[in-house]
């Protein structure tokens, strides 16, 4: 196709006819010019159909000027780089771009789903709720898959997105959303007054629709007058201008988000390192909303046919891209503005006539049309559109305001329609965060009213449609915004302007154009094109009792999806108004929600993907663990070595080897992740007595004590060993996962409750690498590293502490054990961690030292019946429940959780208690979390009496062991209980105490 006659011989302010650009649309190569959009280039090639509608699969073409486009949605890019649902009129083409239409099968012109259109009387408003209700199982297996295939928007990308995305924060004195006439003048005024201004506009060039607007400023047309202002604004040091950037949402305290399409128009930027999209997080002292207005369609019969466009869209095609939708057009309007489209078409040599629903519009533009010899049919509407894949002809019917039926009509051949039902201010971001709006009779639309936030609307967004008033309003708003924000704003000198613009006649609302034939027969007056909601659907919803507009919206799906009411809102309200006899303000409006236009998941995720998806914390030995074949156990954000499987070794084998090394020789554990908190002050001991259930004020200097922590509900939240470094100085250990939480917990109580305590709390977790050295040979290894302190059992017994040096290493050594063996934990500054770790391995080689991971650690501690907070406790478990009631002080007057522990529920008989379990079959390992039941039955329900909390194969004992919380467990010692598993298998286990190994603790003190 040559493009003729659709590409006009001349014109096109946005295109560069010297630069040809080839791209593909549905596999077909299309030639366009640099600056074209997919819409303009494809239309220039003669193709009119861009997609099929959502429900009825009706062929659809380009409709709009910008972000209101609801029909011509395309997918751009292939495979992992495909992005669906982009508006063809906003997608800028580049050489080699791949694009495709959506929601059509097998092709745009023959679509099997179009059968839905023939069956449309079975698809009325609310059809989702009326059909597909029964039988229930059909929804999942039949209805939904079929509907999903037939309906819906574009295809998602396949595979991981290879491109980069990022977030950026920006703070502005004044954020101006929208870079049309109003936005530029407001930004200029605010910037000249000294404010730091950010201006964002979703289009590739600034100016809004100044180029589509009538009027002269100081003898120049609006766009020409504005051009030097744009250049000046961009050059100001206190102004940052972003194009291709849509302000998508307004949130509390003037926080806004904007999505910038950095590289979509030019993939070479990606190769150079640019992010594809950038999400801006904006904090503005003042927001100026200059988002303009969107033209609204008219609800006439079959107003959705390809080549039925908004008048502004046609005007832009001609003026910006040198493209005409056809050779013979009809402009259908209820206002003066659309006459500008007729003039543009005529000037471009396209045959055009105007159909105006008004009886006696007395504006200057109407008069000019007559002067220019453009045929104008007043008191007329379009009552029918002929053609399915393209417009072939229309019928023009005589009309009087409020008339519902066609009386006389004539047929006129044409190949496109430019319609205008007036303009709706774009007040989405005004309304996102509770801004009030009000109905304006002159506009027959809503406009901004009041707002709690520091926010001003200017220009068309404020319902101000004249050039002269817009200029005054925008400049005043910019200056006022700067004054409200700045301590000292500079005075802005007013420019002398002479503005001439045509006097306009009033718009006359037209919510429903009568159609040829019986009411609604074969005619569809689309209100929401994207969701295929017609005027009849809305009326039906009314008749069925959906009185609230919010209910109507959900029932019919009107105003949903990407449309968010842009084109459908007011027209729908108009239909409902006529159906109910209520005024539009009485009906109210639906809620505008962010985002204004969709933006990519990539932009939302920003750079936090792949290795940045979740922060990973590394100990000093991290790389060594990797090099030695460790698999990881994530603990919070830490990575801890789970086990070190050697060549040809299974995990089970390596875990067994590690456990036996600790029991028989010596093992080395990286325990650096344990929380460490220094606590110091004259009241430190008393403070710890408050925080722990047991007592620390009696602890001797140089000694360690295991502590239990509860919350105010009386439930266990953390545990660990605390050392008394000096009379007024303690070092607390917490669980790895609890380090930050417990440090904050201590601070909270000091700051908010016991503010008189003189205590400082300093978390030092990361200062230290800390290693567990456990096993009968632990002391030998320690001794070999030349300690400058006595490591003998007498001088350094279990639960004591030393500060000193191991060779050249500064260390803190705790004789504490989580394995039941003779055991030390050695801390050294993290920078020395790796070399100390290696020193232990070297020194321990002759004793058979082996590094062990967290799984071996867990088995070792379970063999000894030591609890793990979060395994043996679940947030509703008390110290008494886990058999540690002895650690709850009876003497202390108060500690966290004390009073709640006295509540009847926490003391009642029959609570679940921690017990040990030995399965009848010693080789059977109970599944973690398995439930015990009072009585095994053929099928549930069975009364559950508890659950397994830890379960392992113990290589030390050569049999399985487990711990469980069982109702009244401690009174059931020796009883055998049953655990029915999935698949009907029942495991039986005997209740024992929780200490399976070395019950007298001889090894720990050896």
């Amino acid at each position, binding site marked *: 196709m040559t493009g003729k006659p659709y590409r006009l011989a001349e014109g096109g302010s946005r295109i560069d006819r010297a630069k040809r650009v080839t791209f593909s649309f549905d596999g077909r190569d299309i030639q366009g010019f640099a600056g074209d959009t997919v819409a303009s280039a494809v239309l220039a090639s003669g193709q009119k159909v861009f997609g099929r509608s959502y429900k009825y699969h009706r062929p659809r073409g380009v409709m709009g000027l910008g972000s209101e486009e609801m029909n011509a949605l395309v997918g751009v890019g292939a495979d992992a780089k495909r992005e669906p649902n982009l508006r063809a009129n906003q997608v800028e083409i580049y050489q080699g771009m791949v694009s495709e239409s959506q929601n059509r099968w097998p092709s745009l012109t023959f679509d099997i789903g179009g059968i839905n259109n023939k069956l449309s009387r079975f698809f009325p408003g609310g059809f989702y709720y009326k059909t597909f209700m029964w039988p229930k199982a059909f929804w999942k297996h039949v209805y939904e898959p079929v509907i999903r295939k037939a309906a819906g928007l574009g295809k998602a990308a396949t595979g991981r997105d290879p491109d*980069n995305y990022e*977030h*950026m*924060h*920006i*703070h502005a004195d004044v954020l101006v959303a929208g870079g049309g006439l109003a936005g530029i003048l407001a930004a200029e005024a605010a910037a000249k007054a000294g404010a*730091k201004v950010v201006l964002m506009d979703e289009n590739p060039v600034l100016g809004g629709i100044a180029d589509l607007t009538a009027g002269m400023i100081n003898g120049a047309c609006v766009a020409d007058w504005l051009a030097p202002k744009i250049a000046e604004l961009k*050059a100001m*040091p*206190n102004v*940052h201008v972003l194009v291709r950037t849509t302000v998508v949402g307004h949130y509390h305290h003037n926080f806004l988000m904007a999505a910038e399409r950095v590289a979509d128009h030019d993939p070479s*930027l990606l190769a*150079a*390192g*640019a*992010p594809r999209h*950038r999400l801006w997080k904006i*904090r503005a002292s003042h927001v100026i909303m200059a988002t303009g207005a969107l033209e609204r369609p008219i609800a006439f019969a079959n107003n959705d046919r390809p080549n039925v466009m908004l008048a502004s869209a046609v005007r832009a095609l001609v003026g910006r891209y040198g493209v005409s939708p056809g050779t013979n057009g009809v402009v259908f309007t209820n206002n003066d503005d659309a006459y500008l489209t007729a003039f543009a078409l005529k000037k471009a040599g396209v045959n055009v006539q105007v159909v105006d629903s008004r009886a006696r519009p007395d504006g200057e533009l109407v008069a000019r049309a007559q002067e220019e010899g453009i045929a104008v049919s007043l008191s007329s509407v379009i009552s029918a559109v002929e053609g399915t894949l393209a417009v072939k002809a229309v019928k023009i019917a005589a009309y009087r305001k409020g008339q519902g039926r066609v009386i006389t009509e004539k047929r006129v051949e044409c190949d496109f329609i430019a319609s205008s039902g007036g303009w709706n201010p774009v007040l989405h971001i005004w309304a996102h965060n509770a801004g009030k709006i009000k109905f304006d009779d002159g506009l027959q639309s809503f406009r901004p009213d009041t707002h709690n936030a520091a926010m001003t609307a200017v220009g068309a967004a404020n319902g101000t449609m004249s050039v002269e008033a817009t200029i005054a309003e925008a400049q005043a708003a910019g200056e006022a915004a700067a004054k409200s924000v700045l301590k000292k704003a500079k005075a802005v000198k007013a420019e002398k302007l002479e503005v001439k613009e045509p006097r306009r006649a009033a718009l006359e609302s037209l919510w429903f154009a009568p159609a040829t034939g019986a009411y609604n027969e074969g005619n569809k007056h689309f209100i929401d094109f994207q969701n295929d909601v017609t005027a009849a659907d809305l009326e039906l919803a009314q008749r069925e009792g959906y009185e609230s507009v919010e209910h109507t919206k959900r029932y019919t799906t009107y105003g949903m999806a990407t449309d968010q009411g842009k084109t459908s809102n007011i027209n729908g309200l108009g239909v409902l108004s006529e159906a109910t006899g209520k005024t539009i303000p009485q009906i109210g409006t639906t809620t505008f929600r962010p985002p204004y236009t969709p933006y990519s998941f990539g932009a939302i995720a920003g*750079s*936090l993907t792949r*290795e*940045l998806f979740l*922060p*990973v*914390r*590394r*100990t*000093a030995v991290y*790389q060594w663990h990797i090099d030695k074949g460790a698999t990881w156990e994530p603990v919070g954000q*830490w990575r801890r070595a789970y086990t070190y499987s050697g060549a040809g070794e299974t995990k089970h084998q390596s875990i067994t080897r590690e456990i036996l090394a600790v029991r028989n020789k010596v093992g080395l554990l990286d325990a650096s992740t344990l929380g460490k908190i*220094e606590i*110091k*002050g*004259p009241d430190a001991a008393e403070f710890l007595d408050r925080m722990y259930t047991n007592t620390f004020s009696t602890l001797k200097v140089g000694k360690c004590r295991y502590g239990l922590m509860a919350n105010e509900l009386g439930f266990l939240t953390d545990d660990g060993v605390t050392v008394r470094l000096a009379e007024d*100085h303690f070092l607390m250990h917490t669980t790895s996962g609890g380090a930050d939480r417990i440090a904050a917990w201590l601070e909270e109580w000091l700051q908010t409750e016991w503010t008189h305590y*003189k205590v*400082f709390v*300093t978390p*030092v*977790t*990361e*200062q*230290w690498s800390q290693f567990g050295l456990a096993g009968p040979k632990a002391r030998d290894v320690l001794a070999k*590293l*030349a300690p400058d302190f006595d490591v003998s059992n007498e001088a350094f017994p279990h639960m004591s502490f030393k500060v000193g040096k191991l*060779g*050249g*290493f*500064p260390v803190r050594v705790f004789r504490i054990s989580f394995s039941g063996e003779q055991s030390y934990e050695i801390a*050294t*500054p*993290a*920078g*020395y961690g*790796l*070399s*100390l770790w290696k*020193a232990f391995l*070297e*020194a321990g080689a002759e004793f058979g030292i082996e590094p062990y991971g967290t799984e071996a650690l867990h088995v070792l501690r379970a063999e000894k019946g030591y609890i793990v907070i979060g395994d043996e406790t679940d947030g509703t478990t008390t110290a008494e429940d886990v058999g540690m009631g002895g650690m709850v002080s009876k003497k202390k007057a108060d500690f966290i959780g004390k009073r709640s522990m006295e509540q009847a529920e926490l003391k009642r008989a029959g609570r679940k208690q921690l017990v040990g379990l030995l399965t009848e079959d010693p080789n059977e390992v109970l599944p973690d979390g398995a439930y015990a039941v009072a009585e095994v039955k053929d099928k549930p329900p069975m009364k559950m009496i508890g659950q397994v909390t830890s379960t392992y194969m113990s290589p030390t004992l050569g049999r399985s062991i487990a711990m469980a919380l069982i109702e009244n467990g401690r009174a059931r010692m020796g009883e055998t209980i049953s655990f029915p598993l999935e698949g009907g298998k029942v495991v039986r286990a005997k209740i024992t105490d929780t200490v399976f190994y070395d019950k007298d603790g001889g090894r720990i003190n050896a």
Partner: protein
Amino acid sequence: MLEPQFEPALAGRAEPANTYITLREISTRGMIDLRGHTSDRKFMAAAKEVLGVDLPKAPRTSHGFGDVKVLWLSPDQWLVICARDKAPELAAALSKALAGIHSLAVDVSDMRAILRLEGEGAREVMMKSTSLDFSDEDFAPGYVRRVRFAEIAALFNIVEDNVIDVYVFRSYAHYAMDFLTKAARKGSEVGLFKKG
């Protein structure tokens, strides 16, 4: 017998290339976490005596003299920066001088990694990383603040106009460097409020 060998958090990691600012780890600094009350004159005087510099009282400021720099963290907390090998003795000297005064001085030289951002885009990269306004005039050399940085906690100090030190907990050093490397990738410059 192996002797202690100091390993910085990013030991063995190549300095990032292809970034529009310079990013590197500074591992020669020692750090002391100092607690005490601004309102406690004895404490303030004793600390000054040892450090040779007043503890800053104004939020988000720092004082420096010679090798010692003190960063304000809170009305009762400071981070003393000194040469790494001087930290243990300085911490001990502080503890000694502060004996009997309610205070806590802890050598935390290994607790944090310091990542230095250097170059014209340093502030911009910080605005990709935090929600703060680095174009604000308050953000002058000497400025100190703790803040949410990407997904973690961090402390930063504006050293010179285009030099910013970011302190992160040691375990997060690789994450922070990964994040910064991506944020400062060449070609992703924003050029905020930059003309010409």
